[in-house]
């Protein structure tokens, strides 16, 4: 794998369009956490015609619910959660200007189509590497919905946050590419 590409936020469509599935990146700047409950609340607010408490233009969303921070730490353990649970809400959120998503696991066709249309990139962080990822987070500030606890929408200041481009804005999927060379099994073998 080639050397990591450094990305700084805000993350524009122009930056997003340069990335390709399989690229290794290090993200520095501010990313915003949101997961199941926050996505539900935000899309419901949009459906009622309300304005969201956070401007998502050129933002990177991180699907995350961290453990509580120990005293003196900015955040607890903070690995990615399964992105697929956000799929139902994602096209609506991409229309709000999000250009990058960080999570883990596969996405639906509808999400990929919306990514292509909006020029957005989907990154994977290593699932379960939560204590390691915490090392790249310098601060955690709740922006909205504090009542959701670990599911609140929060700004994370990160330095060299490690991730890999899984689905680029042309729809190339590294989950498929990465498995292909090592797949020597099919059900007919049983």
């Amino acid at each position: 794998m080639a050397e990591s590409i450094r990305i700084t936020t805000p993350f524009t469509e122009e930056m997003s369009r340069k990335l390709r599935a399989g690229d290794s990146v290090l993200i520095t700047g501010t990313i915003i956490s949101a997961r199941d409950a926050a996505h539900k609340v935000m899309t419901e607010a949009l459906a009622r015609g309300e304005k969201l408490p956070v401007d998502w233009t050129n933002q990177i969303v991180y699907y995350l619910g961290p453990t509580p921070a120990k005293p003196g730490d900015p955040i607890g353990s903070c690995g990615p959660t399964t992105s697929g649970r956000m799929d139902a809400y994602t096209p609506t959120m991409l229309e709000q200007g999000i250009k990058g998503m960080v999570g883990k696991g596969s996405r639906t066709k509808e999400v990929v189509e919306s990514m292509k249309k909006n020029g957005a990139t989907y990154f994977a962080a290593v699932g379960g590497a939560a204590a390691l990822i915490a090392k790249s987070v310098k601060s955690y500030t709740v922006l909205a919905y504090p009542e959701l606890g670990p599911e609140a929408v929060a700004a994370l200041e990160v330095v060299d946050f490690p991730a890999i481009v899984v689905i680029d804005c042309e729809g190339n999927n590294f989950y498929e590419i990465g498995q292909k060379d090592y797949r020597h099994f099919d059900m007919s073998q049983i």
Partner: protein
Amino acid sequence: MRELDVKVITENVAEMCKEAAYYLPDDVYRGLKRGRETEKSPVGQIVLDQIIKNAEIAKAEDRPYCQDTGMTIVFLEVGQDLHIVGGNLEDAINAGIAKGYTEGYLRKSVVGEPLFNRVNTKNNTPGVIYTQIVPGDKLSITIAPKGFGSENKSGIKMLVPADGVKGVKKAVMEIILHASMNPCPPMVVGVGIGGTMDRAALLSKKALTRSIDERNPMPEYAKLEQELLDMINQTGIGPQLGGTTSALAVNIEWGPTHIAGLPVAVTICCHAMRHSHRVL
């Protein structure tokens, strides 16, 4: 009759919840290291390096290995000659979970009701508690926190006897292929064969409390464990982004079943195969 105060149980459970969240068991750590040595995918190697480093940081700094510190599964073996005093056993266990998750800065991931009003109970209780009465006067406690990235990919198939070994292999592999990279591989796969639908599911959970280095004592099942592991490692799933280390082990537990049935349950566990065990 030997007496055991519930306060002792609560204290131990609290410590065990923290231990399980921070320290990856040695057998799993060694399994990850072995996987790193044999992994063929360059990206897979990078992922495994991160996972191994993560385990080391979590252990050295008493930090949760994963932010999903799980729903707390508790296996109890209560000696029939033991007298538990000072309160109710299940309350004592739940008090221990609440204490451990609060004091240990673990994430509270339990909602009190699943469908209409999903409100967080704020202390990770109640745990899922399985109690077995056994001979003796001891209390054996196993804490197995279960993350839901992998739990959501687990499954069960109600096969019939004619499906046989081939049917079991197909059932397991269908669940694995459907799960793919989603349950945070390298996985550890618990398989429960036999019993009723619920018993098979429980056996698949209990299978995960066995060391990944220990094979089923019955040679036929030990062979099936190895065959399934080889197949899973040939799927290409690898450590999340493709490769050869899709699973570290397949552990099978079996139980007597009905003449008409062959239930097969699969619990997938992520690489955070966490446990803590104590005998009081």
